[in-house]
């Protein structure tokens, strides 16, 4: 097991990248702590898989280094890095039994057969595959196939990191949560570093201790699920995480205070937006409530989602959502919106622009 | 250039050598051919080609071949499309056996069946017509077409059909305006193989024709034997029979591999 360091990494699929736009991965420095459970979250095409393939060695980065502990592995092939990767579509060796699938990586490395046997049985036990060791792997369901992929990584007792590339894509909804909790359980049991790539926020937030959010080849925020929810560093994070996402409302800066639709809005701390920047207020619907005074708005529609109501309102020509308790006002009625100052922040050109942020 | 690319290069070289020799021969004069070995034509001549393009037996041979091959491709596709659809979408009594039976028709030794074919087509009055050859080639082309098309159609989700029917499409309209355009790559690949196997087959084509529908390849053998040893002319005719195939491959080059990969082969 090892700490993984990405040192001023950059990658482009072009031979001669000209501008920043030619890079699939923009410059990044990042450290994955030993034994952490990480999720790599972002929309399709944001560079998640590229980053994953650089760590596993399937891709060599255009610039920068990859370190496992202090060892530079940038130019090492995948089989020398002791990593495991579970792919989006289950990869198994169809002609082999489950047992031989699990034994394959060990046999390729010339491990003596008695050690192979012990190890395979141990891993099969952990993955609940013991009673199917002799069946042909091709006959199994996708969830078991994904377990085998995982197992092929786990059998090596020196595995540095296990990477999951959207592993639940082809799994039945009913099996999804089972496999997900299996992964989580494994992490607790053997404490190996895991990196889980997904575009599904629920998967990321339930699995990871630390979530790395990416957009356009750039890491926009790293933090615990609670950080991401309560204090998004970028409007993208606010919008991408949460349902509905954070309200991003264009605002004016007036003497260091933000005004929205002509109303001055209290914020958590002092905004520090550079002059000339595009400024926005970010507030989650959970922290918007109704009041006697506040920002005037008109209700567009209300959706009952069980214990709460999601309110869709227009403040002038800007849509604002709110999650409120109790009875919802009729569509078309005039209301006043109140923002909870402790959760109201100002963003400049997309990035959080506060002197001191309260988290 | 890696060492492994040597394998395809050598293979292609091996394929090209006899073709080169045929092309070289076709540009040589008869005197040069009979005079001895020469790697390149010493005197380039178009005489052999001139003979072919001025003699009606020759150029009608081309026209005949292309006519029945095209007709066969159209008939085979028209019949195979609905059948392949049925095999890929429905399960009906005896479907598996039917499929295997269709495939077994490739195994019949055509050499012996030639005579019964002659009798059959004479009896129905189709002897020496394009239609006779086109229909006879259906024997091995339709099973092939059904097989390739079925592979393509199985790759199209059933939801496409269901959505269309829910949207109120009648079956014929759905089939012609939605389904067929969806699998046009597959139809292209199939047409390529149909063209290929009909174009290269000679035995049945020769048996079922005499004058009006005689294929180019048959003209070749007869001319070669009757007019003595005219190698140059034979070579030129051979070169000309390769050209239609080469044109067809050029047009479907991007579909060949992709088509098979999409199909359930």
């Amino acid at each position: 097991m090892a700490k993984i360091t990405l040192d001023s990494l950059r990658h482009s699929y072009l031979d001669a990248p000209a501008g920043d736009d030619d890079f699939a991965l923009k410059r990044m420095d990042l450290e994955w702590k030993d034994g952490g459970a990480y999720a790599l979250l972002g929309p399709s095409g944001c560079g998640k898989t590229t980053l994953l393939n650089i760590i596993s060695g399937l891709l060599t980065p255009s610039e920068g280094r990859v370190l496992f502990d202090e060892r530079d592995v940038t130019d090492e092939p995948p089989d020398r890095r002791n990593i495991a990767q579970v792919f989006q579509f289950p990869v198994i060796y169809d002609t082999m039994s489950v047992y031989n699938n699990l034994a394959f990586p060990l046999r390729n490395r010339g491990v003596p057969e008695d050690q192979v046997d012990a190890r395979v049985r141990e891993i099969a036990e952990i993955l609940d595959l013991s009673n199917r060791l002799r069946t042909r792997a091709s006959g199994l369901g996708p969830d078991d196939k994904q377990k085998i992929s995982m197992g092929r990584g786990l059998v090596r007792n020196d595995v540095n990191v296990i990477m999951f590339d959207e592993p639940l894509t082809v799994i039945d909804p009913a099996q999804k949560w089972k496999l997900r909790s299996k992964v989580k359980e494994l992490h607790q049991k053997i404490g190996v570093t895991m990196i889980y790539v997904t575009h599904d926020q629920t998967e990321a937030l339930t699995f990871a201790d630390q979530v790395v959010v990416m957009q356009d080849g750039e890491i926009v925020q790293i933090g615990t699920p609670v950080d991401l929810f309560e204090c998004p560093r970028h409007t993208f994070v606010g919008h991408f995480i949460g349902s509905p996402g954070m309200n991003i409302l264009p605002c004016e800066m007036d003497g260091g205070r933000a005004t929205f639709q002509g109303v001055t809005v209290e914020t958590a701390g002092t905004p520090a937006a550079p002059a000339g920047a595009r400024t926005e207020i970010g507030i989650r619907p959970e922290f918007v409530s109704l009041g006697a005074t506040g920002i005037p708005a008109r209700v567009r529609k209300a959706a009952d989602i069980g214990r709460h109501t999601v309110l869709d309102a227009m403040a002038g020509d800007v849509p604002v959502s709110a999650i409120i308790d109790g009875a919802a006002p009729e569509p078309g009625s005039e209301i006043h919106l109140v923002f909870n100052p402790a959760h109201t922040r100002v963003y400049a050109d997309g990035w959080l622009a506060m002197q001191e942020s309260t988290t | 250039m890696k060492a492994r690319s040597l394998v395809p290069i050598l293979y292609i070289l091996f394929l090209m050598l006899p073709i080169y020799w045929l092309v070289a021969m076709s540009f040589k004069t008869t005197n040069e051919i009979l005079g001895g070995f020469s790697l390149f034509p010493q005197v380039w001549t178009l005489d052999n080609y001139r003979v072919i393009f001025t003699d009606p037996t020759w150029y009608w041979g081309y026209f005949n071949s292309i006519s029945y091959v095209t007709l066969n491709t159209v008939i085979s596709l028209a019949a195979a499309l609905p059948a392949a659809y049925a095999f890929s979408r429905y399960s009906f009594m005896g479907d598996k056996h039917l499929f295997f039976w269709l495939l077994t028709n490739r195994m019949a030794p055509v050499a012996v069946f030639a005579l019964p074919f002659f009798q059959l087509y004479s009896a129905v009055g189709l002897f020496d017509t394009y239609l006779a050859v086109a229909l006879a080639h259906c024997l091995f082309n339709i099973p092939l077409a059904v097989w390739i098309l079925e592979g393509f159609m199985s790759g199209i989700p059933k939801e496409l059909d269901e959505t269309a029917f829910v949207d109120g499409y009648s079956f014929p309209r759905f089939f012609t305006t939605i389904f067929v355009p969806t699998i046009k790559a597959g139809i292209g690949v199939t047409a390529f193989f149909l063209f290929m196997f009909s174009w290269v087959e000679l035995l049945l084509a020769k048996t079922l024709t005499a004058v009006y529908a005689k294929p180019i390849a048959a003209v070749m053998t007869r001319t070669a034997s009757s007019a003595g040893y005219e190698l140059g002319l034979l070579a030129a005719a051979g070169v000309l029979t390769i050209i239609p195939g080469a044109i067809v491959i050029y047009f479907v080059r991007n579909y060949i591999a992709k088509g098979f990969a999409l199909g359930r082969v």
Partner: protein
Amino acid sequence: MKTQNQRGWLFVLPVLILVAFNALVPLMTVVNYSVQETFGDNLFFWHGLGWFEDVLRSERFHAALGRQVLFTATILIIEVPLGVAIALTMPRKGFWVPVCLVLMSLPLLIPWNVVGAMWNIFTLPDIGLLGYFLNNVVGIDYNMTQSPLAAWVTVIVMDVWHWTSLVVLLAYAGLISIPDAYYQAAKIDAASGWAVFRHIQLPKMKRVLTIAILLRFMDSFNIYTEPFVLTGGGPGNSTTFLSIDLVKVALGQFDLGPAAAMSLIYFAFTLLVSWLFYTIMTRDEQ
């Protein structure tokens, strides 16, 4: 899953009519011949299974069948591994892919008698490129019309030239359908090149190779035009394969009964081998 629908028959009907017209009528005619004796003048007499017994006992049939089996086995042993090897070494993407495919498909689109004629010209001892080269540069005494060995080798090389590309096309199609993830997983698992071939590429090519072998088996077992044009079955009977022999019997000697019996036996043989092979190869696909 597929819906149970007898409407399927309606869709299959045109195919059924066209193929049955071409397959059943001639087949029945052949069956008819095979059980009758004729002395010409369109007079036929019932002969029972006599022709079948005669054919099965005849030295000539055994010899032709032996040559046929040897030929088919040889070309399968050469063409299938060679085709797979070429498919494996072909580029996967880029400019050279269509170039390779077009050039490799070329032999498949040449009429069969032209293939025979082309190889005839190519191998003429005095003025053919190959014949001249072997006789005058390498110094082997090569003449197809005299040496059975030379004739055999030439027929086999011609078939390899003609048909290996079909195996290449099919195998290549199987190969490019393998997702990248398989190769990536194999890299991570430290699989050797051989292991990748044995456990990933070969299993994924199984279906296409089954079809390639079936097609090559059926077509080579029926081979007629190319060797007929090239060697005429000679020298002697050395390259007289089943179909050539059949035509000699049927049209040369006009012995329709024995020819029909012979072709039915050999049809049944092809059918049996194909069916066995197909059943074994698809056994574990439920």
